[in-house]
């Protein structure tokens, strides 16, 4: 039986092709790890009942000499992506019992590349949160300290990889929901350029910001998953092609640090110290690290918490108790809506829908939503200009290590501030990766690299050099 905790996608693929172990054995190792550890962690909402059948099919393919990038690799899926004939709830009671009628494009691509889809992972309800505590199906715990959160909203996927339950996982990132839990759990998390990965079959949070991306143990593994996932899709008109951002400037190893932003208040001392060590390490690897001025980047989080709830309030209007999911009966049609949505949506979702309704309402639209759109444009322009002189922007991924369960649940603004360093990449659509950078005691820390539009290649190059891959 292979030791899944010691394998990467790359090493597992080599071993599978050499027949050192079978796909059934590797899948069995994943199921055993879940059985042993997941009752304490709760990364998974469901482990699919057909995984061993998938593995047997895979072994036939391997025996026939097939070689696909993910053939036989156990992968977990965040519960907001559709897997045909399986439940998908987005962590919400309002979708309890919903069965996906088709595969989302990202899932379809994983299957076509031979991945074994192990199950669906826990998440903040509708991806609204930074701790996975707003899930309607219980909290997920950080494998490095069970009294702490794994981050969110893709907390289950981060834990599934960090605890060695699977070799890779999918998450979605609207304001940091891949990178922040990756940092809290000590794994690699990538948010590609906006439009790089099709979102067909992803339950939408904020459509101008949402992007699907991978969790993995190594940058190389994240790159393998990225190459499977990326590409134009006729089912998502926002997807981009290789030609969309065509300027291919040379990678000259210049990193910019937005010093004033990084040294703003609220940064944990361990995070600050670790960040200085990271800067020195990049210098020792031959990178030029220079301070840069991004005067408006500090407004990214405020901008985000106007645009995201506005779009969410519109996107979530589709949950009405008529077409699918939960239905609560009232006296008439409109009362059905009120009851279904009042009981089906959790507290954070109600909070954001109402906030979004406010910033879009007549009289406040220009003041909030209009201003936020202008600010989004200003920040985007500022960042795109910065990338004419530098290759990468470096910041910590999070201002603190993983916080305690329950610590921020009664103070929404303090929870929102956990996304301070991850949000700018979503505002400007930029690709961004979190890579493990050290420890604060037993808790992992992450550092975030952000590249210009379409330049995931620069993230992979620098990330691999940093981790010595």
């Amino acid at each position, binding site marked *: 039986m292979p030791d899944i905790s010691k394998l990467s996608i790359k090493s597992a693929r080599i071993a599978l092709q050499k027949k050192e172990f079978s796909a059934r054995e590797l899948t069995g190792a994943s199921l055993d790890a879940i059985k042993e550890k997941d009752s304490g962690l709760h990364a998974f909402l469901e482990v699919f009942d057909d995984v061993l059948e998938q593995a047997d099919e895979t072994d036939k393919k391997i025996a026939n000499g097939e070689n696909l990038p993910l053939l036989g690799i156990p992968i977990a899926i965040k519960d907001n992506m559709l897997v045909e004939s399986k439940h998908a709830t987005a962590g919400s009671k309002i979708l309890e019992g919903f*069965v996906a009628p088709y595969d989302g494009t990202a899932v379809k691509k994983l299957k076509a590349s031979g991945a074994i889809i192990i199950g669906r992972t826990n998440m903040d309800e509708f991806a609204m949160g930074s701790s996975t505590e707003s899930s309607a199906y219980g909290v997920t715990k950080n494998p490095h300290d069970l009294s702490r959160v794994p981050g969110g909203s893709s907390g289950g996927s981060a834990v599934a990889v960090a605890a060695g339950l699977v070799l890779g996982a999918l998450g979605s990132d609207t304001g940091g929901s891949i990178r922040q839990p990756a940092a809290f759990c000590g794994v690699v998390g990538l948010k590609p350029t906006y439009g790089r990965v099709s979102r067909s079959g992803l339950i939408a949070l904020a459509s101008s910001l949402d992007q699907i991306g991978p969790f993995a143990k190594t940058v190389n593994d994240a790159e393998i998953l990225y190459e499977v996932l990326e590409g134009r899709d006729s089912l998502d008109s926002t997807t981009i092609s290789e030609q969309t951002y065509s300027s291919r400037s040379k990678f000259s190893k210049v990193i910019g640090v937005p010093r004033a932003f990084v040294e703003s208040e609220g940064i944990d001392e361990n995070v600050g110290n670790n960040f200085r060590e990271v800067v020195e390490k990049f210098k020792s690897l031959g990178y030029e690290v220079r301070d840069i001025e991004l005067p408006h980047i500090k407004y990214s989080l405020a901008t985000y918490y106007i645009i995201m709830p506005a779009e969410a309030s519109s996107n979530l209007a589709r949950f009405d108790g008529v077409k699918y999911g939960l239905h609560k009966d009232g006296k008439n049609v409109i009362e059905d809506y009120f009851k279904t949505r009042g009981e089906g949506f959790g507290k954070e979702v109600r909070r954001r829908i109402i906030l979004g309704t406010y910033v879009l309402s007549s009289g406040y639209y220009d003041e909030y939503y209009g201003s936020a759109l202008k600010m989004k444009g200003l920040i985007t322009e500022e960042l795109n200009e910065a990338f004419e002189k530098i290759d990468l922007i470096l910041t910590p991924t999070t201002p603190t290590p993983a916080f305690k369960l329950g610590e921020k649940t009664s103070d929404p*603004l303090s929870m929102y501030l956990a996304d301070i360093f991850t949000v700018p990449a979503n505002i400007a659509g930029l690709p961004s990766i979190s890579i493990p950078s050290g420890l604060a005691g037993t808790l992992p820390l992450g550092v975030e690299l952000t590249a210009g539009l379409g330049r995931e290649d620069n993230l992979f190059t620098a990330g691999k050099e940093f981790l010595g891959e």
Partner: protein
Amino acid sequence: MDKEKVLNLAKLARVELRDEEAESLSHEFEVILDYVGEVKKVDKLDKFNKEESSLRNVMREDGEPHKSGLYTKKIQEQAPAREGDYIKVKKIL
């Protein structure tokens, strides 16, 4: 923002809300709106041309996205109430 305003917004959003939740939300919204309201105060904002930066819709040509009826049965099965091939709702008029 007061409790009544929150209840009115919840009405617009078709979300049933208890009085005490509306009360606590009104206090939370004060704090959140105070924070996000920072974006309004930036001088440079007025000079920024919203039209140039705003996202645009991408439309596809009309046509068959997939074979007609391919998903009909599976989608119908998800509806909480049905009558034959119709999704059932309460009387509107």
